[in-house]
């Protein structure tokens, strides 16, 4: 199995008004081709920031301090903006979090679907529309011809998310970053959408970095999973292994904190405060080491 994405010692901080706050602390992550890799962590763990770093949509205040993001053997951080733009949409794509806002409200679905097709596959307008229609069929949108002529507000949230999935898969990219892609959907739609993503992923052989805070979602869709906290990867491994034999204390706490219908609520334990604060102090310790090594 070949490696499609290899992140090595990636550190990133946010700088504003002279204050600098480290968000990612020496991240190492490997995604093989054809695998769905879950990235699980609580709010503020840095999981979305990692996705944004891969996609080059970091906020302006973010500064990458060190490390590499190797995609297919080339370091993305070394590429020129034009080279990176060439990869985005064609080789690396995004399934965004919120289907309500991620589509342009004043452009028809057809126009938005054909953007990538025209840009990367150089299809002409008619071929692009035909292809867009096929794509909508693949994501199970009924009446795809009509949907092409509709505006985003005329579609339901689930349908919009399907359109976004169609856009992400449109150029058969080799890596898709799914940033909380099912969080904004209700549970039943979430199931359908997850199944759809998995099907498309299997048939196209695309790798997916699936960012989520929901371990239930990870169990459904992921092959391997990495647990992130305070900008550090605590543990990586196959999903079955992580779920059955978690090595890190935080992973165990996280699994216990997941509500499950087959367990009584007495077995449900929130993550202990001491654990969170010890992880945070480890993060501070990391920052101190970096500072010392820079000073020395």
């Amino acid at each position: 199995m070949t490696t499609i994405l290899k992140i090595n010692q990636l550190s990133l901080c946010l700088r504003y008004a002279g204050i600098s706050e480290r968000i990612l602390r020496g991240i190492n992550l490997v995604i093989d081709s054809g695998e769905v890799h879950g990235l699980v962590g609580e709010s503020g763990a840095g999981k979305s920031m990692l996705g944004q770093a891969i996609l080059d949509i970091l906020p302006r205040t973010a500064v990458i301090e060190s490390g590499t993001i190797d995609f297919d053997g080339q370091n993305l951080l070394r590429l020129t903006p034009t080279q990176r733009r060439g990869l985005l949409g064609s080789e690396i794509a995004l399934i965004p979090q919120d289907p309500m806002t991620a589509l342009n409200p004043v452009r028809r679905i057809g126009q938005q679907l054909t953007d990538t097709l025209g840009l990367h596959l150089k299809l002409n307008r008619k071929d692009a529309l035909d292809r867009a229609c096929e794509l909508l069929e693949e994501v199970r949108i009924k009446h795809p011809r009509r949907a092409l002529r509709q505006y985003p507000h005329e579609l339901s949230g689930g349908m919009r998310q399907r359109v976004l999935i169609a856009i992400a898969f449109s150029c058969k990219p080799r890596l898709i970053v799914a940033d909380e892609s099912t969080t904004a959907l209700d549970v039943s739609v979430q199931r359908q959408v997850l199944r759809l993503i998995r099907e498309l992923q299997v048939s196209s052989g695309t790798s997916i970095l699936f960012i989520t805070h929901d371990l239930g979602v990870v169990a459904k869709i992921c092959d391997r999973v990495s647990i992130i906290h305070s900008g550090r990867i605590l543990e990586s491994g196959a999903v079955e292994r992580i779920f059955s034999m978690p090595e890190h204390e935080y992973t165990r706490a996280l699994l216990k904190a997941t509500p499950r219908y087959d367990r009584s609520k007495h077995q449900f334990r929130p993550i202990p405060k001491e654990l969170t604060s010890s992880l945070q102090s480890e993060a501070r310790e990391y920052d101190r080491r970096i500072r010392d090594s820079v000073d020395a």
Partner: protein
Amino acid sequence: MVNMRPDPSFVYRICHEPRAVFGLFVLSVLTVTALAAPWLAPHDPLEQDLLYSFLPPTWYPQGEGGYLLGTDNLGRDIISRTVYGTRIALVVAVIAASLACLLGTVLGLCAGFFGGKVDLIISRVVDIWMSFPAVLLSIVLVAVIGAGLHAVIIAIVIIDWTRFCRVVRAETMVQKELDYVASGVTIGLSRIQLLLNEILPNLVPLLIVLLSMEMGIAIVVETILSFVGLSVAADTPSWGNLIQEGRQYIHQVPWLLGLPVFCLIFSVVGLNALGDGLKQVIDPVSRR
């Protein structure tokens, strides 16, 4: 909600928006009047007949049948002059407003999208520009360029691009932070493509409102400049010239002012309604 009804056609939606209907009516009246002026006007607008000067409207006892709304100091037909005045009003409205819109939109998009130094420079220029009193500035400009219709148009463009620039800049700044622009980045669109494909379409409803309001303003400004004698030559029929002449005899023959003032109000109100109505029809967001 999933809208199961097919998208109603554009024409259908316009017909169900009273403001748009009224606005289109006003605009078509103005256009037809301007184009068909030679056939609509009962007399030559420049033809003088001193025997028939200051004729009152035809329903007054001293009125003449051939001059429906009376004549001015030189015996020229009021209706004919107003009809020909429409040409000047419309030309100024369309050309000046479009050019001001173009200039202001381009600069506003750049300022809002690129930010930083570009924004700083453009915004400061706009601030300085807007601190001048508009009418005074236009009079000075026309005085420098030289009187005439082209000077009026240039003056309006130079003064009023700031209106577009400010609003477009602010809206661009709002739009570019929205998720769909970030999505655009992730499918590999360049900055220019983001600006033109993603952000500009979101500004169209706004631009239509601004443009039609600006057309109204341009008509008023042309009238003001005609009024102070800095637009077209004094004998050329324009609404401003007519109002200016009417003002001199307002105590003796108040009806001279009536028609041109009505036309002015009619067109400005109509154009504003057109802007509001079209915004409703075009904007898929405010359309439900």
